[in-house]
């Protein structure tokens, strides 16, 4: 029941951010077919419609570029962390995916553990995005 409630909290912005991240995964050699398949299920379980996901899979679209600004990068990664925490648990695969996106966005490999833990911890605490971004400035 709690999970369903949490799932409903996934906003349109979160969805669109995820879809863009999903699009990025296809252009990245670090993500193989098994991982893109896992991400599809991950999204499906979080109420992102099959149609939206199939649109990405079955049509040729422009490659999504990695966001330029630090704020936008953190926004995207934090949204992903929120989606990961939506079911109240973080699996190993989800953690690997989050780390891969951090690397793709240009964050340093030596900070990956700290960075991903920070994002997940804040997602657990439901920290508003604006508060999170303020801490960086």
């Amino acid at each position, binding site marked *: 029941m709690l999970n369903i409630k949490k799932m409903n909290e996934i906003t349109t912005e979160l969805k669109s951010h995820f879809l863009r991240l999903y699009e990025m995964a296809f252009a990245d050699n670090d993500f193989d*077919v098994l991982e893109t398949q896992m991400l*599809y299920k991950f999204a499906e379980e979080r109420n992102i419609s099959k149609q939206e996901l199939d649109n990405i899979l079955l049509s*040729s679209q422009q490659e999504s570029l990695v966001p330029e600004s630090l704020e936008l990068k953190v926004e995207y990664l934090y949204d992903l962390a929120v989606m990961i925490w939506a079911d109240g648990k973080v699996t190993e695969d989800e953690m690997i995916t989050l780390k891969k996106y951090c690397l793709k*966005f*240009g964050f340093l490999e030596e900070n990956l553990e*700290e*960075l991903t833990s920070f994002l997940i911890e804040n997602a657990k605490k439901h920290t508003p995005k604006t508060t999170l971004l303020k*801490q960086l400035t």
Partner: protein
Amino acid sequence: MEALKKIFTTREKDPVEEVVVKEEKKDVKLTFFESGYGSSKQASGNHKVFRACLNDVYMDYKRKCAEDEELQKKLKQPHIQEKGREGIELKKRQTAKAILEESIKTDEEKIEECEHQIVEVRENPEKYVEEVDKKPKAQFYLGLIVLIPITFYLLVFYISASFSAFFKDFENSELSAAIFDGKSFSKALEHGVLEAVFIATIPFAFMGLGYLIHMFQKHKNWLSYVKIGALFIITFIFDAILAYQIEMKIYDYNKTPDSREFDLSIAFSKVEFWGIIFAGFVVYIIWGLVFDFIMKEYENIDKIKAFIRSKRETIVNLQKSIAEAIEKLNGVKEEISGIEARIANLQRTIDGFVFPNKRYLTYHAEYVKGWYLAITDNFLDLKRRDELLSKCDEVEKEHLTKYDLTDENTEGIIYKSQLK
């Protein structure tokens, strides 16, 4: 705060690899012109030599292009990008294929599970259907075997009792048949059809009351229990009235002048009175309970049937979704083979060599210009000059056609293998 900023440090941008092609010097064109002029002068503009020279120039330029790695990189750049785009599309379709295959597999497993449940529910109904007995069919038929004779009994009893109570003339009858009269129906028929219909239909009123008990029991609330209680009381009173009337007729038949008037206290003290009530009312209660029981068993059978029906519907829906997924999967597979073919083709181009035809045509024009100018400079005889120029013109056209260089709109002729 500083520590937080540190973990959000991004790495320096990778330097973008730029393909810089050295600017071609303007005098390269001049070299071609000079080379054309010199060769033409040496060969006196001979068209056969011109043909060999053009071939030579073409082959030489082509070799140089093939050896110029930077130029090749630049020329192949669009093909490499295209391959990257196709690669993305391929990965998407492969993901779609994997998802569709998995969904087909899951649906097939679900169908298998449903088929198993359809078989299993008959053996272990309580596992799948709530509040169901193990052997609803056997219990239903056993109940039915009991219910049918009781129904006949009720029919016979109430036909006879109601005939005795309402129509029987005890003056002309045997007293032994006061309660039960085997000929009650035929006697009633003798008195008239309506009388026969009346006594024949009275038992159904009791059965209707039994049916109502079953219906009220479905809703387990206090109002239903009140209604059931009221039904029992009404039936009991009705039975008591029948017994009272019969008993009264017997009493009146046997009474002497000093006998007191028949009343309830006399009726209550008579064995026949209670006999009639118990033979009717108690059996009526038994009938109602058995009827209620077999109806419940019938509903159990119905629950199992409904379960099987719902599973069959699920199977049909799953089969439909499998058919749809297979159709999609075939489309995706076709797309994958198309993309793979395009990628293989692009890879051959990337592994091969791209000839910059437009660039060559510029140099070719310079060379031809030099050749023709040497002819005009060295041959004063107009007729001879025109003859040579026209033959050389033919040779030039032949050369361009031979190497497929007539289309000026195409940039880069692709050779799928290395020139070596």
